[in-house]
């Protein structure tokens, strides 16, 4: 009896905390007029979506993705190119970017179906690298390393930092919440977790492992591409750097520190890490990356479950 009361109390407390955080986030542009800060938060939220999408694939479905930047970049380019060439509304472009990245994820996932662990990671990396080389050199399509610039942004709202912030905030909250409920509270999530823990058992239950794997890739790819499309419409410049492994590495670092297999942990870690590194950058140093590297090593050694894992206990 007491246990249920305290459980309800603490989950109510957690819920209240989330609402308070959301309210604060909504009020932020009103309280802080510094564009740099708001923009940093916007980017941080985009990374949060990306980190959560990686966690969905690895932390829940157990698929090592070392090519996540590929999904991000593919979504960014797809959205930008579609809007530029067909005038597709950015509101739709977000979903188009996500869908395109989901398709790309299927393309990546299909040959990798029977691979696991290290080999799967390398296969996804190979695909991401091939994409990067493609977009870097296909000048006529992507303007290569100069980057593809977009001069339209979201119609119907002002083209400024605060507006973008709100768009990203809303979509981030919805995306991450969706991923969370998908992973933790839905049947699909159960299916994904079966994929990760025990292929044999899942097979015995009559599930088609291969289809599940592709599903995991597609869903994760969608959200990563969605984040990429957001990036394209906010920054309005897409370069091959968006497909580079440095992004994948950063995302993996964020997820590890935040706590793999929690969706929310990587999201929060992404926000914190991005904000902190941007501020350290102000000092004109490269120490933020050194710090992230160091933090990652220390976390793996002493806190492999990440911060979320620590809180669980």
């Amino acid at each position, binding site marked *: 009896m007491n246990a249920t009361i305290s459980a309800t109390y603490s989950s109510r407390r957690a819920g209240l905390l989330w609402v308070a955080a959301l309210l604060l986030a909504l009020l932020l542009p009103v309280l802080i007029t510094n564009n740099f800060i708001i923009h940093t938060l916007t980017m941080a939220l985009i990374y949060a979506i990306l980190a959560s999408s990686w966690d969905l694939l690895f932390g829940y479905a157990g698929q*090592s993705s070392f090519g996540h930047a590929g999904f991000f970049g593919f979504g960014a380019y797809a959205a930008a190119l579609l809007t530029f060439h067909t005038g597709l509304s950015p509101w739709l472009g977000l979903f188009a970017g996500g869908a395109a990245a989901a398709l790309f994820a299927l393309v990546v996932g299909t040959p990798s179906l029977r*691979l696991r*662990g290290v080999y799967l990671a390398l296969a996804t*990396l190979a695909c991401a690298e091939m994409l990067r*080389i493609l977009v870097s050199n296909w000048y006529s399509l992507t303007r290569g390393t100069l980057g593809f610039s977009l001069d339209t942004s979201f119609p119907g709202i002002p083209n400024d930092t605060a507006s973008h912030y709100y768009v990203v905030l809303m979509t981030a909250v919805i995306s991450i919440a969706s991923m969370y409920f998908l992973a933790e509270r839905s049947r699909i999530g159960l299916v994904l977790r079966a994929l990760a823990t025990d292929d044999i058992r899942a097979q015995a239950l009559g599930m088609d492992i291969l289809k599940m794997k592709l599903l995991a890739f597609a869903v994760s790819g969608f959200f990563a591409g969605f984040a990429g499309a957001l990036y394209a419409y906010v920054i309005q410049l897409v370069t091959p750097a968006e497909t580079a492994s440095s992004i994948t590495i950063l995302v993996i670092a964020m997820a590890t520190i935040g706590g793999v297999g929690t969706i929310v942990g990587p999201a929060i870690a992404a926000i914190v890490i991005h904000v902190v590194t941007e501020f350290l950058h102000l000092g004109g140093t490269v120490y933020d990356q050194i710090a992230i590297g160091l933090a*990652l*090593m220390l976390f*793996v050694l002493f806190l492999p479950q990440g911060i979320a894992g620590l809180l669980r206990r």
Partner: protein
Amino acid sequence: MILDVINFIALGIMTGAIYALLGLSLNLVFGVLRVINIAHGEMLMLGAYTAVVLAGVHFGGPFLSILAALVLVTFVGLVIARLLLRPLTIDGRIHEQRGMVMSLGLSLFLSNTVLALFGPDYQRVPGLLVSRVFEIGDLVLEGQRLVILAGAMLMATALMLFLRFTLLGLAIRAVGENPEAAQANGISVPIIHMITFAIGSALAGGAGALITPVTYAFPAMGFSYTLYAFMTVIIGGLGNIWGAVLAGFLLGIAESLSVIVLPTGFNAVVGPALMLLALVFRPQGLLGRKLIRA
């Protein structure tokens, strides 16, 4: 036209030698410790910067640089293995995912520390035969690249002899093949891991000092070499030293020749594409088994 092809092949052989070295060294680390070492390229980078530092103070020549790189990176490798990898070892095996993430952090840490210390500029280092160019008929061969080829072959041969004919080499192969049985023979798996990691890293470091006169040194150089190392290992087959050498050359030649058919810049796609093909159709690689065979 034929001449172009021959020149491309020659160039491919010389870049292939570097890939072969990378593949060899990673094969040792990957094959024995079974850890994806993302920081492998950073070991090469450290070797390259050793050459940079020595050249900067005009101390010694290219040979000394390579030697110094080997020594320094051996030491670094031992430290990394002891402090970062050993705690992740359970029952003689390193936790696969944690090892990889650990190496990620190490890669970030090392490349950015060097960036902070030396700045982002590409650094040059004088080499042994840098300005000499050899002409055999119509074939043009840069001197330094020949040095790289020779150096790579030397290191590869030394490694193979070591693995084949010494007790330590046998122990390393044993641990790579069957860590539990190795322990039952009185072999300390953690110590062998350390030694193997050190040797593999040192080879990469030596390669770094070797190639810097031609390819320059810059802090972010590590990652693309890590990639080539993995590509070579996968294509050649994990655990097979000869396979790594063969794959390295094949990759170098394929990449070089593809310039003829592919538009500019696209030839870099050959490596990842071959690796993907290998992973999907022939995961054991060209000559691979799951064991180290010298």
